[in-house]
């Protein structure tokens, strides 16, 4: 029997607001334990939360960018459970009325597009972190509450995902949207993007859902994909052997590459949700939503379509250029200074990205402005430098930050295109190399390459290659 997986993903994204969701503490990552705390995020007796409006703004942006409807009246609930990293004994979250619902995003797999529906987008506070001692003689666990009260968005998909690869693509697309919105640094290593997965399998053609497992503890997109692959295999094996899949929460073990049972359905918490009485309802009126909509940047899909249609770029170029909003911005800025978009695309997808990767840099603090790159490409286009020389000039620019024109004139790299001068040099090379000349005349085509090489050497690479080819052939015939 053939089985198909049914997968829904829950993504938690930490917002990069300056302050926490319910107090004025900083959200910076990596400070010493408990230095970014105050009575409110420590959950001391008597404190009250005050909502950071910036968080609502980020949530509205995300809801709109994922095609969700934004609720008019927004309320918070308390989710009650005990854990040492949860200072109040409850998490302030949203429950039956999330900020956004019924949205979708588009993913692409093997050239095919697919819509994945978004169930909900909601706001909540993060918990702190437990630090377990690494010393075997010290069994204590310490609590760091710097992260407590940091704003999170939870983005939940419908179970529209049918393979681990689709899950991976969904995460890539979602992350891309979040990065375009500039609401999070989406750094999985620092935990600012986290993903849990719900997965069940069912016989192909069956419409009822199978029993699902919830997978946690995956710390990369590839990890999510691998955990899902493992889980599909595990569940299939159970069903084939005539056994049952139990509803449970399972943890992905990165070292052993397998999922392990954490708790069964019976052990699941009863969170006793109820409306948070310390916060008042906030009204999100049409004006607020419309203003936010107008302030949204061009989102990945719109940008991809535009790059394809307006700039006439290939699918590959579009994909690479729009992956990062800043790279796409760089491309568009460059195109204001140089008209040949295909050529810009080649340089960015090739040399620019390679240079960034090489220097472990990102385009934000790249040494070369889009205008400078445009100027360099202009010098190639008008024949001032050869394409080959341009590569060297490019490397110089990356290192020094100087303009292309300056480097070309200081180093005397202007292309030699004077026909009279070239004829003299070519004749000299013909005289000095009688054997290759004879070889060519007797039909050996590759002798021409040797001669061109000699001419380029003589001119230190500056000779215009098209002219050299044409003149050389004429002189030899």
């Amino acid at each position, binding site marked *: 029997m053939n089985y198909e997986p049914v997968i829904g993903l829950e993504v938690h994204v930490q917002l990069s607001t300056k302050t926490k969701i319910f107090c004025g503490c900083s959200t910076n990552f990596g400070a010493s334990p408990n230095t970014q705390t105050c009575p409110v995020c420590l959950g001391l007796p008597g404190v009250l939360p005050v909502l950071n409006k910036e968080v609502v703004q980020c949530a509205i942006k995300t809801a709109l960018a994922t095609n969700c409807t934004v609720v008019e009246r927004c309320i918070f609930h308390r989710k*009650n459970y005990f854990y040492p990293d949860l200072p109040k*004994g409850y998490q302030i979250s949203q429950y039956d009325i999330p900020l956004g619902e019924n949205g979708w995003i588009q993913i692409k797999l093997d050239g095919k597009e697919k819509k994945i529906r978004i169930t909900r987008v909601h706001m909540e506070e993060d918990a702190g972190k437990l630090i377990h001692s690494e010393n075997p003689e010290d069994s204590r666990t310490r609590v760091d509450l710097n992260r407590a009260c940091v704003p999170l968005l939870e983005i939940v998909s419908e179970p529209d995902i049918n393979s681990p690869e689709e899950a991976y693509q969904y995460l890539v697309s979602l992350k891309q949207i979040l990065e375009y919105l500039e609401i999070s640094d989406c750094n999985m290593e620092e935990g600012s993007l986290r993903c849990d997965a719900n997965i069940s399998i069912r016989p192909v053609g069956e419409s009822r859902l199978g029993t699902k497992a919830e997978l946690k503890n995956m710390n990369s997109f590839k990890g999510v994909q691998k955990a899902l692959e493992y889980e599909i295999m595990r569940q299939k094996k159970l069903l084939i052997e005539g056994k049952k899949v139990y509803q449970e929460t399972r943890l992905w073990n990165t070292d052993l590459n397998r999922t392990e049972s954490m708790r069964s359905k019976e052990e699941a918490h009863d969170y006793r949700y*109820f409306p948070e009485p310390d*916060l008042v309802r906030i009204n999100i009126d049409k004006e607020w939503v419309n203003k936010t909509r107008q302030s949204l940047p061009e989102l990945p899909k719109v940008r991809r379509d535009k790059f394809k249609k307006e700039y006439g770029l290939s699918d590959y170029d579009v994909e690479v250029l729009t992956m990062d909003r800043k790279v796409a911005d760089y491309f568009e800025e460059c195109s204001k200074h140089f008209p040949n978009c295909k050529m810009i695309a080649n340089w960015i997808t090739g040399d620019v990205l390679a240079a960034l990767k090489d220097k472990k840099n990102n385009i934000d603090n790249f040494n070369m402005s889009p205008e400078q790159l445009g100027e360099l490409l202009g010098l190639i286009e008008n024949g001032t430098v050869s394409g080959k020389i341009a590569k060297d000039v490019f490397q110089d620019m990356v290192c020094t930050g100087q303009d292309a024109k300056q480097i070309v004139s200081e180093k005397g790299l202007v292309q030699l295109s004077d026909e009279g001068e070239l004829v003299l040099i070519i004749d000299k090379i013909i005289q000095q190399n009688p054997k290759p000349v004879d070889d060519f005349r007797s039909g050996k085509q590759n002798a021409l390459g040797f001669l061109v090489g000699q001419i380029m050497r003589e001119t230190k690479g500056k000779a215009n290659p098209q002219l050299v080819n044409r003149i050389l052939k004429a002189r030899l015939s």
Partner: protein
Amino acid sequence: MSTINRVGDMKLHTLTAHELAKLLISREVSSEELTRKLYGHIEKTDKNIGSYITLTKDIAIEQAKEADKRIKEKRDVGTLTGIPIAIKDNMCIKDVLCTCGSKMLSSFIPPYNATVINKLKKNGLVFLGKTNMDEFAMGSSTETSYLKVTKNPWNINTIPGGSSGGSAAAVASDQAVLSIGSDTGGSIRQPASHCGIVGMKPTYGRVSRYGLVAFASSLDQIGPLTKDVWDCAALLEVISGYDSLDSTSVNMDVPDYISFLNKDIKNIKIGVPKEYFIEGIDKDVELTVKGAIEKLGSLGAIIEEVSLPHTEYAVATYYIIAPAEASSNLARYDGVKYGYRAKGEGVDKDLLGMYENTRKEGFGAEVKRRIMLGTHTLSSGYYDAYYLKAQKVRTLIKQDFDKAFRECDVLVTPTSPTPAFKIGEKTDDPLQMYLSDIFTIPTNLAGLPGISLPCGLSKNGLPIGLQLIGNYFEEGRILQVAHAFEQSTDFHRNKAR
């Protein structure tokens, strides 16, 4: 009003804040002298009464000296500058023990000030100490306190009421000129009634709750307990106002509450809800309150009967909502970060064991009862039947009041169905205890302001309180009626001895 002749002879501590304010401003008496006098009286009497958990004498003397300086330099002098006040032990003062009447917090020292504390400081009041209360404000007699029993200054065999019993007893026994308490279901008004003083619960949102250790967030409100209505108006004005740290505080100007006093009450419509004169109400209470209503009529108010038909559901509704919120608010006391942590076998290595033992040992019986009630009513499968239903009834109760206030300006009721009862009389019968708040609970559910003021004594010589309930943010109106009643009677001059 008594005339003040020679300062030296006077029992300074027995005076009201407005009497003392005159002496302070004229510099016949210094705040330091007054403060020391009060501590002398506290030392003498508190062994018997037990109002205070913590005395903050060093802070108070410091504050009194500063107040005297302000008065001398005529700098930032408010109506209550230099007046000593007692504070219920569930409001945070930076670096001062805040026990909430619980073993759980018996060593907890907050690192921050509640907003009311900052307001009192700004106005130059002097902090005498922190007063006893029912554990986490859960109770109507102050008997659930882990730390001590507080006795009613009128008869030390009876309870002072609760949960702000310490604050009420301190004012009634002249151990403080003023005090503040908190009121979730009657915790200011009921003890004020039992101790023969004035106590007010303001409109929900009038006073910031920031720094008040939460019991039931949607019901809690801080308010004054005072010797008379003038003092109540003055203290209310000091503590009221919007606070950006409390999202539920309301951004409205604070009126000059004293300007409502000394006005006649002719043609003010006073409604008498018939559901508040029920079977089971103490005869003395019923007669005394009816007498007080007649008095209001004789002062020119128009008395009419009104109906609040959902009153009978108020106690049941309250005992769903308040414990539900409390079960969540008290979850933070888990032994991890501050407060009590259980020790011993099984606790050091096992997280669940640590939680269970900490909460088992750290909370008293009444608190645990309410946590269990609230946990149950919020659990899945029960939420709709209990919590959601209770919220609906709460709306109906609120609508009853809205309707009543379309017909009248103020409502009048007894504060409590009985005078103070004997210590230990109801500790084994929680339901009887819960009924002590039957007349005060509906106002909390609706979020309305209510005041209790003395209106006579029972045959046994215990005070009886009259409750006036106003429309939202109409504290001024109930102060006006209360003041008119007070000025035409002598009940507020009755003293415990």
